């Protein structure tokens, strides 16, 4: 595929902060997120609800409703777009960066045929004629595996199944050959067999078009199947990031470790309790000043109540960022983290 910008990242999010107004007070939903995506790669953004993963993605396109970027920057292809004009953003949205949402039924307009909705984007962003746009729409529907696209182009959203609607959303996202596709929980609403189809489709299309993928998910299985790199969110910031295989197999942050063991697997012993994470994610109004996982962490110590910096490590020769002072090699030799990890 294209080798453009192989060295420079396509998207750089640097120390991003996002605030929301909530009836009189302000809450910070994203507090200092760093994230990079290179051309053609798949980066999974994982975290629980309220961890700030979707807000971060929507901040890229400034689709924040009553929220705003209160600090940091977003750079697209070398240009700072943190405070870009609406006009500039409109040319990026759809053309360069496309979004696929979780629930295709609410993203599609029930009153227009799917062909009509696909054509709208093509006519707006690519200035195609009505006829050209319709032909391209049929071609796109065929590409995403909709059977009999020449007929289905005139169907309305309610006439399609959930899986087909999500395929239409993906067709729409790819309509203007974007360089980055942001997919926010694209398969969460689908049955597991249909999920497998949609994940395969996204992988194939990525291979064909070279589009980079920012995949927001809560499912570690989806991360394992799709991602080159993974960024783990907790309570509004990044706690760990690195190559997906490495993070899944050798998690370093206590939260990532706990999260991975809390998922039932096929070989989880049925007569033992699940290793659950005690407590709940702290609310946005009650964030601890130091490590945000401190209230639930089995290793919490005095030093954890100070703000935690990202520690950059080499794990098995690969770069790994971990927001935990215990991960710092300076503490590793004397500290007991290794043995603690074994215990976990």
């Amino acid at each position, binding site marked *: 595929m294209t080798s453009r910008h192989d060295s420079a990242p396509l998207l750089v999010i640097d120390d991003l902060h996002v605030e929301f107004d909530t009836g009189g007070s302000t809450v910070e939903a994203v507090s200092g997120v760093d994230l990079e995506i290179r051309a053609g790669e798949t980066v999974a953004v994982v975290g*629980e*609800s309220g961890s700030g993963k979707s807000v971060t993605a929507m901040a890229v396109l400034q689709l924040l409703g009553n929220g705003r970027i209160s600090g940091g920057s977003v750079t697209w292809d070398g240009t700072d777009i943190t405070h870009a004009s609406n006009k500039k953003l409109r040319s990026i949205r759809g053309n360069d960066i496309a979004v696929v949402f979780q629930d295709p039924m609410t993203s599609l307009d029930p009153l227009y045929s799917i062909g009509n909705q696909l054509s709208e984007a093509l006519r707006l962003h690519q200035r195609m004629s009505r006829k050209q746009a319709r032909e391209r729409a049929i071609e796109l529907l065929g590409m995403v595996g909709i059977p009999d696209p020449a007929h289905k182009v005139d169907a309305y959203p309610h006439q399609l*199944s959930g*899986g*087909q609607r999500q395929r239409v959303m993906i067709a729409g996202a790819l309509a203007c050959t974007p360089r980055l596709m942001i997919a926010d929980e694209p398969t969460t609403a689908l*049955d*597991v*067999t*249909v*999920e*497998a*189809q949609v*994940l*395969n489709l996204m992988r194939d299309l990525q291979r064909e078009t070279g589009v980079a993928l920012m995949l927001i998910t*809560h*499912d*570690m*299985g*989806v*991360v*394992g*199947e*799709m991602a080159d790199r993974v960024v783990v969110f907790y309570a509004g910031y990044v706690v760990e990031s690195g190559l*997906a*295989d490495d993070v*899944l197999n050798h998690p370093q942050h206590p939260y990532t470790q*706990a*999260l*991975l063991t*809390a*998922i*039932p*697997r*096929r070989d*989880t012993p*049925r007569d033992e*309790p*699940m*290793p*659950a*994470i*005690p407590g*709940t*994610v702290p609310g946005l109004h009650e964030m601890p000043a130091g490590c945000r996982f401190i209230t*639930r962490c089995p290793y919490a110590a005095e030093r954890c109540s100070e703000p935690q910096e990202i520690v950059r490590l080499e794990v098995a020769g690969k770069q790994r960022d971990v927001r935990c002072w215990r991960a710092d090699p300076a503490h590793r030799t004397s500290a007991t983290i290794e043995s603690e990890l074994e215990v976990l």
Partner: protein
Amino acid sequence: MTAPTLNGVEREVTNRPLVEATDLVKHFEVGGGFLSAKRPPVRAVDGVSFTINRGETLGLVGESGSGKSTLGRLVLRLIEATSGSVTFDGQDVLALKNKELIALRSRMQLIFQDPVSSFNPRMTIEQVLTEPMLVHGVGDAASRKARCRELLDLVSLPSTALARYPHQFSGGQAQRIGIARALTTNPDLIVCDEAVSALDVSVQAQVLNLLKDVQKELGLSYLFIAHDLNVVRYMSDRICVMYLGRLAEEGPSDILLNEPLHPYTEALVDAIPSSDTIGRAREPLAGEIPNPSAPPSGCRFHTRCPKRFEPCDHLEPELITVGAGNVSCHLHTEQAALHRHQDPPEHSLHGEDPQEGATA
């Protein structure tokens, strides 16, 4: 022998299954209104039989539209079955009069997927927990209040929660209250319909542990309905796999997942995204679940089955026993028939296979 219960009432334990469902059918009528023509009914559940033993968890899996939630509601008689029978502790549930049914309902409860929307937002948690006791005439005001505290303690919530409202709780806490409410009347059976599906992973594990703990403590039976096969396996002793209103396969959890007999079970197991197998290029099951008002002829799965052969599109397979489980698939009826021809004495167990004439 007696089973331990929360409020000290002891019940006789027998060997007979707690729930026996036989040939359950539920067809939903659609159309047929003033202006619309009557259309063929949606065959949500179409001849399903199973049993749930005391203290046992029966898992129920299948894609959306397979009829698993309908089946759960049929067992509780929240909807009326078209035909078939359900017995609960020896009583014919479908024949009960209204009053008797209400009395029996105290012994069977339901936990929903979205706990917050299953509560009345204007009721305090104390009212939420007291209401079932009022309906069933349990205790006096003081004992009911004590019971509420006891229940909250059981699900690890502080008794200060009693005065609060549903919206003041997180999803995990609300599901704990949902469990507490289901336990108020001291039931024998709880139907858990996607009870942990809406919860975050870290909280889901807590709720799974809680469900197992109260089961052990109170000797409960669960009908555990969910779409996550690994969660169902962790919770269940046996699993039923449903497809388009029919039972595709039934068997002990570990055997069912590790050695699936039905191609549909196999496809479901293969489709689970796994963090262990990076970038696996699996061939997913093609197509989607067909319309349940016009199910395919023969085996309902044949339109998507990678292993279909001659009889599948015109002959419906019967449920036959294979090993520790049951399966309805011609691959196995064929095999059973073959065995019978080659080696009749040792396989006489399969001798009553009703498909014999058709498949030989």
